[in-house]
């Protein structure tokens, strides 16, 4: 295992790691340019590189971009990648308090913990875990996504009705496009672009970033100037870190687990983890007002997904999302067939990949620290100009998603809807969760009903899905009791 470490510290692999990570962090921090775009940029280079340097390049971009997204989420309330949308919920209020550098510090530590936690899982139990995960089929996915949705309802701050309404809007947007089972087109109104579904990244950018611009524009005369202190990178102190250790661990575990599941992804993981922390975290009362624990929940989880997603990709050759599919196909082209045999035939390669992934997480944070003063400088720009720049970024970023002006319109519409919801105090996070989890719930429910020949109860008559259902019910009961206590206390 340790001779592989020597192998991956050879100059070409190190260079690929450093270069890939740097590109990843920058691409991640620029709204609209996500992991996939970063990988597409470096893909042509891999044609001329060896297998390990290619992997170092891709893994660097992958991990770096997931981390980089948090920087813009914190600074300008515009998640650089959808994976970081949940980070902005507490990261941006912190930045508005004049703690931008510290918020990025929290995000860095959380990303490092999440990333290395998942790397450790990958190193130790990838193979058995991957094989176990095969047993989780559509019914288990449905039970899991249902649990996540229930948690949303349970922790909605303020008006429950508003939370549910916002969630419904998200669910509705997710329904547009092809039916996952029959292929019938829904709500496409004969528009070709809608037949593929509404671009969720464009919606997230509109709802989170553009709506913020509109709100600022309306209130421009009476907004406080954006504080431009605390712009240097600052690591959180040990005390506050230790006080939130449970969230670090739990969120890393949630992220890794969701990463192992196919087709779920880092965006869902960060929201699920955020909801869980908001439910059970030590500082849950302050969530949404700039509480570092919220940043930790989101960032530890989304970076843990990267390692988790590599588990089935390497151990079974089964990628769970577009990013790992790209990595697996690269390996095939390089004559390395990922799968069960890879671990017995070429263990050195597997260990080398682990080490690359492990080291990448550290490099990523170093770049984050070095680049923070550069990125935070944008906060010194007068609000009017910054808002203009954000608008341009939002449109350029959404245009680059698929090179289509339609996504720009999507983003604009989402921005207007987001603005209306914001000024009426609807929770935007509920909308995002509906949007992200909606397709997962729908697809897994429909698939489950096929698996069980149309019987709804039979979905939960399987060991793991039954277990998850019991857990969900307990969760609801616990929340209800707590709510009653609180009401009783007040009364």
């Amino acid at each position, binding site marked *: 295992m340790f001779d592989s470490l020597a192998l991956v510290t050879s100059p070409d692999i190190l260079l690929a790691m450093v270069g890939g990570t740097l590109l990843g962090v920058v691409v991640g921090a620029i709204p609209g340019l996500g992991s996939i775009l970063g990988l597409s940029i470096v893909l042509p280079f891999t044609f001329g590189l060896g297998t390990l340097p290619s992997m170092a390049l891709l893994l660097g971009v992958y991990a770096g971009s997931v981390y980089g997204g948090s920087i813009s989420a914190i600074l300008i309330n515009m998640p650089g990648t959808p994976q970081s949308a949940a980070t902005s919920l507490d990261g941006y209020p912190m930045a508005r308090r004049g703690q931008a550098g510290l918020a990025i510090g929290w995000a860095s530590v959380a990303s490092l913990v999440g990333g290395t936690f998942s790397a450790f899982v990958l190193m130790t139990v990838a193979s058995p875990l991957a094989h176990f995960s095969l047993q989780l089929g559509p019914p288990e996915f449905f039970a899991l996504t249902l649990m996540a949705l229930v948690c949303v309802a349970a922790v909605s701050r303020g008006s429950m009705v508003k939370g549910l309404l916002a969630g419904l809007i998200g669910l509705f947007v997710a329904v547009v496009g092809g039916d996952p089972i029959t292929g*019938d087109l829904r709500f496409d109104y004969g528009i070709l672009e809608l037949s593929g579904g509404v671009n969720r990244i464009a919606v997230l950018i509109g709802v989170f970033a553009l709506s913020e611009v509109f709100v600022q524009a309306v209130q421009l005369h009476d907004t406080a100037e954006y504080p431009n202190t605390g712009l240097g990178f600052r690591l959180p102190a040990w005390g506050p870190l230790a006080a939130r250790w449970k969230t670090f661990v739990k969120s890393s575990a949630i992220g890794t687990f969701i990463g192992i599941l196919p*087709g779920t992804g880092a965006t869902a993981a960060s929201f699920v983890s955020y909801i869980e922390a908001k439910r059970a975290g030590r500082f849950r009362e302050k969530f949404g007002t700039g509480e570092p624990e919220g940043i930790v929940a989101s960032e530890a989880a989304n970076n843990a997904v990267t390692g988790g997603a590599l588990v089935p990709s390497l151990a079974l050759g*089964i990628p769970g999302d577009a990013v790992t599919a790209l990595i697996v196909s690269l390996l095939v082209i390089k004559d390395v067939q990922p799968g069960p045999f890879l671990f017995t035939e070429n263990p050195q390669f597997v260990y080398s990949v682990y080490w690359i992934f492990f080291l990448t997480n550290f490099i990523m944070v170093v770049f984050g620290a070095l680049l923070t003063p550069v990125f935070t400088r944008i906060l010194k720009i007068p609000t009017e100009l910054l808002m203009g720049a954000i608008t341009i970024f939002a449109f350029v970023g959404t245009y680059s998603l*698929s090179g289509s002006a339609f996504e720009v319109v999507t983003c604009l519409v989402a921005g207007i809807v987001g603005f209306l919801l914001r000024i009426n105090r609807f929770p935007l996070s509920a909308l995002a969760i509906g949007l992200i989890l909606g397709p997962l719930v729908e697809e897994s429910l429909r698939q489950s009903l096929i698996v069980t020949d149309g019987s709804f109860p039979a979905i939960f008559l399987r060991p793991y899905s039954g277990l998850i259902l019991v857990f969900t019910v307990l969760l609801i009961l616990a929340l209800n009791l707590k709510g009653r206590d609180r009401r009783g206390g007040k009364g």
Partner: protein
Amino acid sequence: MKSTWVRSAARALLVAAPLFAALALPGARAAEPLKVIVPWGAGGSSDTFARTLALSMRETLGREIVIINKPGAAGTLGTTLVAQAEPDGNTIGFSALAPFTMQPHLRKLAYDADSFAYVCEPAASPMVLAVRDESPFKSVADAVTFAAANPGKLKYGSPGPGSLPHLAMVELGLKAGVKWTHLPAKGGDMGNVRNLLGGHIDMVPIQILPLASNPIRALAVFSDARLDDLKDVPTMKELGYDVSHVIWNAMVAPKGTPEAKLAEFEAACQTAAATPAYKALLKKVRVPDTFKGRAALTAYAKAESDKFKVLFEQAGMKKKD
């Protein structure tokens, strides 16, 4: 001192600029890059084929080739751009069959299978009907017998409704006179291999690449003839089911592209398909080395489109008007 020099030089350049432009114009025209629109994301199989072909075609055609990934709406967004591009030999497309011959029967599109000049088919990936190693089914007949006795009990996977594996199983079911149930899953072949290994489905038509590295086996191949790679696996036709499907990849140009250009592309494509780099790629993804030129491919695409039109009707999927 220095700045005035720079300034006057800049002024001179500015004055001379239109001159340069005029000089450069004829040359620039000839060297306009060839845009290859791939209606899928970077790193996918269509993209990899296109990029590897482009390595050689750049030299043969003597012009720059730009691969443009335009994913969305099951490949129809990018393919629409190809169909509507100026047919001047500066834009072509590359994809597997679905956006050309299948999707026009499902969605309202600005094009149909007839909107293209088919240039070449440099790769056709075979499909096999796969089951897990411990499956009780040793042959297609076993599965058919079971399905006849238990209508709808057997579940097969596919990457999505209206995909080639889905239609292949609908057709097989019709020809064998049995009913089985469709459980689509995202994630392409491997997403379905996952469901197969986990026991969530009983069988799935996939390409042959995953066979070697997973505990699964092939009952039959959907190609017309047995594969060199899988000599022991019978074809569906041998077994008495007249079902034949292959995932063919095609380079197409918008209809109306000049004959001379099409002939040039066809020759360059053929040369590229014979290069060691391309042959090595085929070997790695376990796709047999075959090639179809313009004439053969045009007739084939037409026949395929007609076949799919009927199959979609039989599968109960049709376009909304």
